[in-house]
């Protein structure tokens, strides 16, 4: 499974979708990368919720969303930005 997307010295073998994402992030102001990524993460969270994800599974998916978004600046080698230290939100009960 060759998916070394965090390999800073590896070749540009990123999936096309990730490459597009990196291109989008490079168009952002460095100071705006993390706030914008946070907004995107919230949007994705809403999409997942609309798909019917609930309970603990929903929390795991949300954690993955923010975890992935946190490291995207480093993966995409955004200048002046390494990671986005998103704060964990406290999701409401999903019963």
């Amino acid at each position, binding site marked *: 499974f060759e998916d070394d997307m965090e390999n800073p010295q590896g070749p540009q073998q990123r999936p096309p979708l990730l490459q*597009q*994402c990196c291109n*989008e992030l490079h168009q952002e102001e460095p*100071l705006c990368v993390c706030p914008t*990524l946070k*907004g995107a993460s919230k949007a*994705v969270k809403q999409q997942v919720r609309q798909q019917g994800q609930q309970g603990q*599974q929903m929390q795991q998916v949300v954690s993955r*969303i923010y975890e992935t978004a946190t490291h995207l600046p480093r993966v995409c080698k955004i200048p002046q930005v390494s990671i986005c230290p998103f704060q964990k939100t406290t999701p409401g009960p999903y019963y």
Partner: protein
Amino acid sequence: PAGPFRIPKCRKEFQQAQHLKACQQWLHKQAMQSGSG
């Protein structure tokens, strides 16, 4: 004069359906692929 720092309005143009669309798709894909574990 204004303050020493001026925070750009990063979210002023944020549109959930358009902004960072590829990143949203990537985040969604990664999150859903890691369902098991």
